[in-house]
């Protein structure tokens, strides 16, 4: 069922304000949703970088108003070249994301509106734009939500000999390929290249392997909490699996507890699947809402990163 606006969300809509912020490619356009005056203030600004502020399915609009009704400040940002922001539209994806726009927005919101602590949430490449901001502004970001985002720069770089051989032995996977053979020539070529070269393995730490903006180490250094959502059948999840050990194994128990990875059955990334996109944002709203200091017993002092360090283990996948 498509989301319906609640009266509390309508009230937040009434208070929204347009913002113009200087960005590296010209003025950035954003909408600020102030927190409900009657709600206990969360003291957190939820910043959502988007390529058009209501994509997908007006869910960033719903999320902003829903969270603002619970005491969060929310800002949905048009990345440059999109919506009303200045600049040429880049082709965002694995090679380029608009992380500098997110950094510019954080700095503007801090300097001009006094916002100090941020939660960044994004879908697909927009999540990578948010993750990219950790390199420059990690200290200001206390939490991050990645909804179905790519991990590797070249998808097939996650395919090594073992991956291909495992896939060939996986009858379910083979059956799916035969049933829906879209792109099979490309996949066959990728598999051939993976089998021909020596195993890429998980020891290759060349950061160029990762999608643009995938600043995972900066995220870890920041001490921020993070939620990554993948679908079990997503290419993005296969990418994540191929580097999961490399990313997660070196983490201290404290850092590991701060990174939640939810793996949904089926797929989580199908651009245009309105039910799936709505479910992703509803999960993000719930997760972010739980960061509210008044609600989260585990993180009563979000300002105090050491308090976060004593948090219990990450939640189980859905």
């Amino acid at each position: 069922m498509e989301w319906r606006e609640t009266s509390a969300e309508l009230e937040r809509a009434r208070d929204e304000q347009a913002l113009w912020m200087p960005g590296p490619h010209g003025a950035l356009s954003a909408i600020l949703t102030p927190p409900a005056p009657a709600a206990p203030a969360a003291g957190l600004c939820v910043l959502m970088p988007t390529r058009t502020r209501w994509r997908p399915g007006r869910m960033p609009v719903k999320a902003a108003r829903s969270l603002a009704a619970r005491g969060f400040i929310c800002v949905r940002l048009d990345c440059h070249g999109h919506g009303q922001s200045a600049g040429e539209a880049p082709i965002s994806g694995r090679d380029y994301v608009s992380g500098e726009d997110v950094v510019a927005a954080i700095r503007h919101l801090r300097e001009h509106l006094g916002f100090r602590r941020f939660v960044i949430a994004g879908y697909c490449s927009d999540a990578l734009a948010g993750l990219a901001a950790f390199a420059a502004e990690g200290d200001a970001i206390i939490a991050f939500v990645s909804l179905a985002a790519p991990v590797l720069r070249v998808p097939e770089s996650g395919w090594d000999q073992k991956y291909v051989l495992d896939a060939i032995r996986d009858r379910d996977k083979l059956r799916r390929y035969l049933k829906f053979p879209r792109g099979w020539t490309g996949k066959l070529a990728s598999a051939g290249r993976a089998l021909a070269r020596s195993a890429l393995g998980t020891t290759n730490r060349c950061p160029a392997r990762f999608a643009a903006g995938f600043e995972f180490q900066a995220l870890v250094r920041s001490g921020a909490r993070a939620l990554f959502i993948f679908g079990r059948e997503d290419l993005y999840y296969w990418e994540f699996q191929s580097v999961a050990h490399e990313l997660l194994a070196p983490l201290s128990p404290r850092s590991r507890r701060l990174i939640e990875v939810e793996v949904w059955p089926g797929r989580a990334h199908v651009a245009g699947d309105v039910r799936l996109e709505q479910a992703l944002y509803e999960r993000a709203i719930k997760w972010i809402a739980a960061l509210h200091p008044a609600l989260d017993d585990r993180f009563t002092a979000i300002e105090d990163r050491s308090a976060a360090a004593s948090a219990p283990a990450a939640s189980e996948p859905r």
Partner: protein
Amino acid sequence: MTGNAHLALDLSEQPLWFDSHGDVPLYGVFHRAHNRPRARTVALFCHSLGLDHLVTWRMEVLAARALAARGYPAFSYHARGHGDSAGSFADVTFQTLVEDALAASEQARRMAGASEIVWIATRFGALVATAALRRRTDTAGLALWEPVHRGVDHFHALMRRRLFFEVANRYRPSLTVDEMVSQLAREGELPLAAEWLHDRLYRSTLTADLARSMEDWRGPTMLAQVQKRQAWSNDNAALLAALRDAGAPVTAVAIVEQPTWENPAEPWWTSPRLGEETIGWLDGMA
């Protein structure tokens, strides 16, 4: 007005909220004319629905800026349940779309201090704009960007698009178009590719027809066909002929291009030529 822009870097572009019927705050953007303001008219953009709205919003923004730079004030808005406006899409009907267009026209005229409106309507917005302008006497011109000719055709095309979407994404297509219509009536809503469809909206647009809506229209008209084909579509050709027969001054523009109407993964499209042709048409009217 229920809210104001602040921190605007460029004061010529003013985002704002204004009330429509039923006290629903709608998002709008007023583009003040630069240089030599032609204050008599204001250009009002009337958007399409769902994925179309997303695909063409940037084009509207760029065209409004170009118009303002040329001396024409311009106004864009989001109808209720759309974009940054308030409201649920489930509550949208053809009547509310027309009400919101009328509220936007009042807001546009007030902000520009204009006495006339030039409607620039995109896709489904053509049906809305022509229904709205029948209730006004201040329309100076009408530009139609790749207009939808019949509401029912549009929604059935969206249902067919869902079938393509399902195949392309390795979903098993589960319903025919007829079955989708039945499901819509039974359940009240239907997920499509990158948008929902609600029975209230579907039923309220069953009789929406562009040619019938324009039967009495004799004003300056621009029709821009944006399609991959070179030839005029039957509907566009018939509309052009009817307008010419009725004595309306008509400018026909064919842009041979396929916008990403059907690609939810890259839902952005702009056409410098469409903007230039629209400005040229407005200049010709002045």
